[in-house]
């Protein structure tokens, strides 16, 4: 460790440890570069599928009374187009880009949880495959990409189509949640030493906020999907108005996710712009702090807009006004960013190149989309154009202009980094013009067709309405745009196969990802830098060779382990060494088992699904047991004269924060369930119910049980501090089993849950508590196993800290759940009799 190794020897040593293997071994890859690229490539394949679906739609709508497809196929076409584009293209693409770039830009060797990244990818791939394969069997989802009930309920969609959507999307969302947790923790904890938050490149800020938004924004959809699937499969009426449910609840849950979703899609694209524009303006970004404030504001404000998708539902005007005002306000942080970018260009020495073409395209297209968005925020206007092609025009202008164009700019910008080759420019420029002209031709017309009354999701139209010429133009434009995208695809492939070897850092950028060899090595940095200035003003040519020579931190391999550095969240002060697990097939195994579980539920073979679920849990236990550090390591040398402890022996390490943020997401899910329960009580038809739940004294037993947990888990921690955790853990496990039994008894006291939403929501709340009791039991047993195998000690206590988090969370939510069910009879008593 102390002798100087040559860069070549260092490279070989690192590659041996960090490499992902060859051939079948690549299935065990956990490296962020490999997984990030997989996400991106898979997302682009789904984009092509979504694009073909769009072409089929345009072929059908090109002429009036076209006989190309009938309504049954057409309904599948537009549902799949939206679903594939939103869930299987946009989100995974931004995840992949984040995974690929973040460690490099932040000066780390990898993300915090490499196996989790890999598992997320498999969930995405298998879930996406299930959804898309349904088209081959003619049972693709056909209720629209937002699947409004009651149309998507079992009565009106008896086939498997809706279940494929609900289960498939929830499966894919696992990958979104794992990516979100990982990105938040990695950005906060795994930066290069010295990179305080104000020295972090804006890309990091954007992804941090995006990931937080994902943590809070996806759970409402996950909950809604679970509830709808339970309604379809087991008859529990959450959305059925004939049994005390409300179809509008689905809309609230969906759009609570749906609106932040589009900002989740936009922010990483804005991150790309904030990274690229300064490079092409040849000066640092103008308004760094203003942009940070703006994106924090955007992150929050975007959660206050969702009802603007529901302005015609019959909600009172004052409530609509809140959402209308917030929808207009959100234009302000967006404008701050746009004017900052313009200022950067104005105050720099702007130059042209292919990425800038797409930036221009962004300015033109996204600004139009943003302006029509403000129009749509106006309630009376919305009442006319809601659910017409005007909205279709708007959403494509903001999504294509605000996501696809910046991502294409990013693609051309980073392709030399991905491939190590430079572009063959012949194709790039004509491809751009085809795309932008084709796009505008396709979608500009739709503003007018919408104003002329053309609704969404119609498979044909009458000839006397003034829509034919415009639709034909749209279809022609669509095909032009498709050709443009095909040319872009060809362009990428050409660069990959025939491009000349690129110079390092062809754009003369000053962010860290260019301070490493391109294409990147598996270990990203041969040694890690200490950051003294803002990380978008790095002197790359000076820094690169010093890092490659091993002169930074961790310029060595120790004990055949993958290591990177952990820092203080705010100041970037060096705190600990993060010991990462090496490549493993476990993520793949877990992914396959999860897919089997999903398929079991899809085909209603529930015993099989339950078995697979248990197998998945067992595989996660295996993750935890494998790679466990079995001895106290104490402070370790990390280079540059510094010694810090490993992450297992500090407070506030990555695994602990991951638990915190996972619980944040979980809390959002629980809050959505509580919201749903109260919403139905307040607003749904057919309340008050005939039967009311009576939990009796067992409810008090449950509450006391939670108090017991609170005390017992602290006892276990105290026991570990003196090195004897096993007995206390065993007692904790026994208490969990007891609590599970009590909750089971409570669940059994709910009579005939399918008969009314009151019973169904009470059932759901208690089921949530029971599931968490089960999770706590599993975690306790896992911790016990680790204690027996020596992976836990008074110094290595992170497992117990995480256990405490889960137990406290389960106790708080359990108390709320039981108390709410106990309270429901009182609340029902307040309602006027039906």
């Amino acid at each position, binding site marked *: 460790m102390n002798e100087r190794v040559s860069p070549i020897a260092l490279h070989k040593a690192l590659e041996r440890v960090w490499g992902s293997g060859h051939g079948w071994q690549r299935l065990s890859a956990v490296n962020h570069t490999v997984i990030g690229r997989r996400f991106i490539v898979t997302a682009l394949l789904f984009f092509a599928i979504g694009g073909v679906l769009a072409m089929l739609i345009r072929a059908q709508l090109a002429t009036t009374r076209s006989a190309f497809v009938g309504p049954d196929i057409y309904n599948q076409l537009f549902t799949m187009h939206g679903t594939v584009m939103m869930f299987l293209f946009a989100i995974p693409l931004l995840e992949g880009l984040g995974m690929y770039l973040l460690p490099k830009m932040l000066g780390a060797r990898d993300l915090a949880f490499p196996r989790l990244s890999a598992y997320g990818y498999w969930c995405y791939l298998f879930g996406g495959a299930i959804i898309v394969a349904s088209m081959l069997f003619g049972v693709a989802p056909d209720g629209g990409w937002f699947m409004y009930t009651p149309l998507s309920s079992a009565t009106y969609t008896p086939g498997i189509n809706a279940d494929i959507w609900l289960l498939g999307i929830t499966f894919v969302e696992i990958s979104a949640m794992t990516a979100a947790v990982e990105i938040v923790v990695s950005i906060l904890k795994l930066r290069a030493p010295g990179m305080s*938050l104000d020295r972090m490149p804006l890309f990091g800020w954007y992804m941090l906020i995006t990931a937080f938004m994902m943590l809070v924004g996806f759970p409402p959809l996950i909950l809604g999907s679970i509830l709808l699937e339970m309604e379809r499969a087991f008859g529990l009426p959450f959305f059925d108005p004939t049994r005390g449910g409300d179809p509008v609840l689905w809309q609230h849950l969906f759009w609570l996710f749906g609106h932040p979703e589009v900002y989740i899609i936009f922010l990483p694209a804005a991150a790309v712009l904030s990274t690229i524009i300064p490079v092409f303006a040849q000066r640092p970004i103008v308004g760094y702090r203003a942009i940070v*404030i703006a994106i*924090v504001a955007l992150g929050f404000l975007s*959660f206050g807009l969702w009802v603007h998708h529901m302005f015609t539902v019959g909600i*009172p005007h004052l409530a609509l006004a809140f959402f209308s005002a*917030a929808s207009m306000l959100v234009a302000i942080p967006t404008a701050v960013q746009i004017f900052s970018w313009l200022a950067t260009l104005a105050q720099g020495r702007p130059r042209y190149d292919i990425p800038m073409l797409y930036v221009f395209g962004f300015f033109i297209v996204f600004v139009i989309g943003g302006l029509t968005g403000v129009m749509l925020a106006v309630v009376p206007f919305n009442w006319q154009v809601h659910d017409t092609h005007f909205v279709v025009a708007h959403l494509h202008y903001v999504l294509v202009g605000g996501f696809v164009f910046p991502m294409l700019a990013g693609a051309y910008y980073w392709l030399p980094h991905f491939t190590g080759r430079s572009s063959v420019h012949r194709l790039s420029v004509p491809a751009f013009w085809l795309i932008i002209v084709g796009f505008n031709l396709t979608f500009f017309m739709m503003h007018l067709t919408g104003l002329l009354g053309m609704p969404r999701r119609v498979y044909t139209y009458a000839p006397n309405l003034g829509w034919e010429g415009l639709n034909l133009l749209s279809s022609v434009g669509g095909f032009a745009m498709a050709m443009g995208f095909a040319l872009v695809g060809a362009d990428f492939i050409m660069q990959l196969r025939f491009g000349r070897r690129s110079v390092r850092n062809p754009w003369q950028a000053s962010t860290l990802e260019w301070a490493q060899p391109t294409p990147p090595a598996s270990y990203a940095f041969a040694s890690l830098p200490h950051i003294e200035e803002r990380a978008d003003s790095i002197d790359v040519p000076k820094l690169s060779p010093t890092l490659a020579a091993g002169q930074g931190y961790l310029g060595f391999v120790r004990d055949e382990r993958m290591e990177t550095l952990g820092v203080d969240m705010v*100041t970037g002060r060096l705190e600990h060494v993060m010991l990462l697990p090496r490549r493993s097939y476990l993520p793949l195994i877990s992914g396959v088992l999860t897919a089997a579980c999903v398929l079991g539920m899809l085909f209603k073979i529930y015993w099989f699904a339950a078995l697979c679920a248990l197998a998945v849990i067992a595989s996660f236990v295996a993750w935890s047991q494998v790679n466990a550090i079995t001895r106290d390591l104490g402070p370790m040398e990390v280079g540059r004269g510094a010694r810090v402890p490993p992450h297992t022996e500090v407070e506030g390490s990555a695994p602990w924060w991951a638990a915190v943020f996972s619980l944040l997401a979980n809390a959002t899910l629980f809050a959505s369930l509580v919201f749903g329960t109260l919403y139905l009580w307040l607003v749904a038809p057919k309340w008050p119910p005939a039967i009311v739940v009576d939990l009796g004294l067992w409810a008090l037993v449950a509450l006391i049980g939670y108090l017991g947990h609170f005390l017992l888990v602290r006892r276990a921690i105290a026991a570990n501090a003196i090195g004897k955790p096993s007995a206390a853990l065993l007692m904790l496990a026994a208490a969990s089993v007891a609590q599970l039994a009590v909750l089971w008894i409570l669940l059994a006291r709910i009579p005939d849950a399918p008969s009314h939403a009151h019973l169904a929501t009470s059932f759901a709340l208690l089921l949530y508590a029971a599931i968490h009791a089960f999770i706590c039991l599993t975690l306790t047993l896992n911790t016990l196993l680790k204690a027996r195998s020596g992976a836990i000690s008074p110094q290595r206590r992170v497992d117990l800290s995480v256990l405490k988090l889960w137990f406290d969370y389960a106790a708080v939510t359990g108390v709320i759940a039981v108390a709410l069910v106990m309270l429901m009879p009182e609340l029902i008593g307040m309602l006027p009799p039906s």
Partner: protein
Amino acid sequence: MSQVPPRRLLWLTAGFTLWAGAFLALYGVNAVGCAFAWPSALQRGVLLTLLALHLAALGYLAWRCWQLRQSHGRPAFLEYVGFGATISALAATLLTFAPSLVLSLCD
């Protein structure tokens, strides 16, 4: 930024958390009031009181952020953006919920 507690990060989010709280409170109270057919003067009064409370809390937060800024020579990064975020949240709360003064509550 040498010794900055991670809590300082919360300054970035505190203001808008209050905005979100105001949203929940006002939207929720409006829904409950309409469902139980409260007299509109009472309903509006409750809404405006809740709004005033949140605005007061935001004002206090902004003032504390301002003090924190002034206590350093040149405002450090988190203090600056924390203050900016809080002021933005204050403005957002005012603008989002101003309609409570005049608009129809339950129609």
